[in-house]
């Protein structure tokens, strides 16, 4: 097992910078999600680490060993492809055995290791089947078993659950996480699904247009996004834009919003504030907001979406629509069109320097 260091890696296709000076340290044994919209360079980064493609500049090391000149087959990586890429002419067992067999392992060892890997992904009895006789989820498991049976130093997964339906995807998330813990392999997981990234990984790197926007544990990125993009791509956020005051921002209409987390921006500079919808308290004019909620705004409910355990309110305020999520506690529900007061704490307000 080993960590992966990516340092100042750039890769261009023609004039298009698919990766622009990306540096990430993937810790040994960690589960790392690369998150970003389509075309942000996730696959390109994964392919540099795997060795299918080579950076124009920058360095990549696996387990402390520089791999720039090491071909794919010598990098000792395991890769799971989005379309599974199972060999259609081979049985499930032969697919899993492939990596061991090209290394010339003895037949008895191969048979034993293959069975162990198939058992690990709970496909112990399906070794004789051909890939086309399996369901999508089962193929996914075979691809995983095939990738880990050779005991690679790093496991690379490119949107491995993208083709599965929602329920199966959640099952596979849990399953994948269990297997990763069990064998303790360094895992780099590419996804465009923010929920998947949040629930599965120890750390997340957010990519946008080939640049690493922010990197850190999920809680940190969620609670202290450093850009509007990070705030809105990972979870939902209400964004206010204005001029920095030193302790928050002043909106164009003169309202001030206090923020006690996030960047420090010199007074007078352009800045924005991000607030998560579930951190905002919504009340009718009569009720008193929590005294700790120093930030208050008046607005009008334009829409309510009931989702069982919670409700989402869309509140119009001065041309902006704000989103508020309220847990269903059985309290009185607000009607559409009702005037309301929104309040929240400066602790829940993240100050972001303008890009």
């Amino acid at each position, binding site marked *: 097992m080993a960590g992966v260091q990516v340092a100042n890696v750039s890769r261009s296709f023609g004039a298009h910078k698919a990766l622009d000076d990306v540096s990430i340290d993937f810790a040994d044994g960690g589960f790392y999600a690369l998150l970003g919209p389509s075309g942000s360079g996730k696959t390109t980064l994964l392919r540099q680490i*795997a060795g*299918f493609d080579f950076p124009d500049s920058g360095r990549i090391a696996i387990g402390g060993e520089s791999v720039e000149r090491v*071909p*794919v*087959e*010598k990098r*000792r*990586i*395991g*890769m799971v*492809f989005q*379309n599974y*890429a*199972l*060999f*259609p*002419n081979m049985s499930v067992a032969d697919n899993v055995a*492939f*990596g061991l067999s*090209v*290394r010339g392992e003895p037949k008895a060892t191969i048979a034993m290791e293959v069975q162990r890997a198939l058992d690990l992904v709970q496909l112990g009895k399906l070794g004789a089947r051909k890939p086309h006789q399996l369901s999508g989820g089962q193929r996914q498991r075979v691809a995983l078993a*095939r*990738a880990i049976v*050779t005991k690679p130093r790093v496991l*690379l997964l490119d949107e491995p659950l993208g083709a599965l339906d929602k329920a199966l995807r959640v099952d596979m998330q849990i399953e994948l996480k269990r297997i990763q813990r069990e064998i303790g392999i360094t895992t780099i997981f590419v996804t465009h699904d923010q929920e998947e990234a949040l629930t599965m990984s120890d750390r997340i790197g957010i990519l946008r247009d080939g640049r690493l926007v922010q990197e850190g544990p999920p809680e940190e990125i969620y609670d202290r996004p450093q850009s509007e993009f990070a705030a809105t791509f990972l979870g939902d956020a209400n964004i206010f834009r204005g001029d920095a005051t030193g302790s928050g921002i002043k909106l164009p209409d003169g309202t001030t919003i206090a923020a006690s987390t996030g960047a420090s921006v010199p007074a007078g500079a352009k800045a924005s504030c991000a607030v998560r919808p579930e951190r905002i308290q919504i009340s009718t004019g009569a009720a008193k907001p929590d005294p700790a909620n120093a930030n208050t705004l008046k607005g009008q409910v334009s829409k309510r979406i009931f989702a069982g355990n919670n409700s989402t309110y869309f509140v119009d305020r001065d041309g902006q629509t704000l989103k508020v999520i309220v847990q269903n506690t059985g309290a009185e529900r607000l009607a559409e069109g009702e005037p309301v007061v929104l309040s929240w704490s400066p602790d829940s307000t993240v100050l972001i320097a303008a890009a």
Partner: protein
Amino acid sequence: MADQLAIGSRRGLRPALPLLLPAYLWLTVAIFLPLSAMAFFSFMTDLPLAGKEWTFTLGNYAAFFSQSLYSTLLFASLRLGLEVTLWCVVIGYPAAYVLAKVLKGRSREAIFLLVILPFWSNGLVRIFSWAMVLREGGILDTALNAVLPFKINIDLMYSYPAVIIGLVHSYVPYMVLTCYLTLQAIDDSLIEAGRSLGASRRQVLWRVIIPLSMPGLIAGAALIFVPVVGSFMEPRILGGRTGTFYGTVIEDQFVAVFNWPLGAALSFILLAVVLIILALAAPVLRRAG
């Protein structure tokens, strides 16, 4: 659901009949009728032309077994078919690989055209061009002697290699096309998956790409082997006196000796042998694929 599909497909056959009819009619007229006529001839003592007397006989088939010349020539032709097919694999498969997996865009189209070109040129023109290249004092001889510091004599004309060269050139496009189609269908991610699992390029080729392109290789081999075994034009023109093969003997019966019944019988023996070979090869090849 499955029931509905089955009913649907059974219903689907009847409206398709008028569409299929012309094809079946054509097959009947173009293949079945002439073939039955030939089968009929092969059991006759003489052609029923110009009021000649004829009776039924098995003599034409017996001739094949009583004279060792025919079976010797048949073996020579089978060997020729095998060699030409092998050369077509050796030349055509790598070409198809480069076309399908290495070249992209315009350069692919250009090379493709070069491969197909012999298809579009007349067979006789093709063979006589080779004759000009291969004979002593021909293009190959002159060109080599112009470059090389010492004098060599290249006269491949009227030799076995000349026949092979002519046939391979005529038939290699089949191999390129069938292999190109199967190679094209192999997803690049399969190759990458193989490499990520520790296989070198060569191992990926032998364990993944070649097994997956087996259908194309088999189709190409069948398309080449069968006509080459019966070929007569290339052996006659490029092989000269060394170019006597089973196919040329059959041709002689039809155009020189006018012994159509013997020619027909020899043709049906060839057909039977080729079918037996294909039938024997099928299970082996299927397992390999």
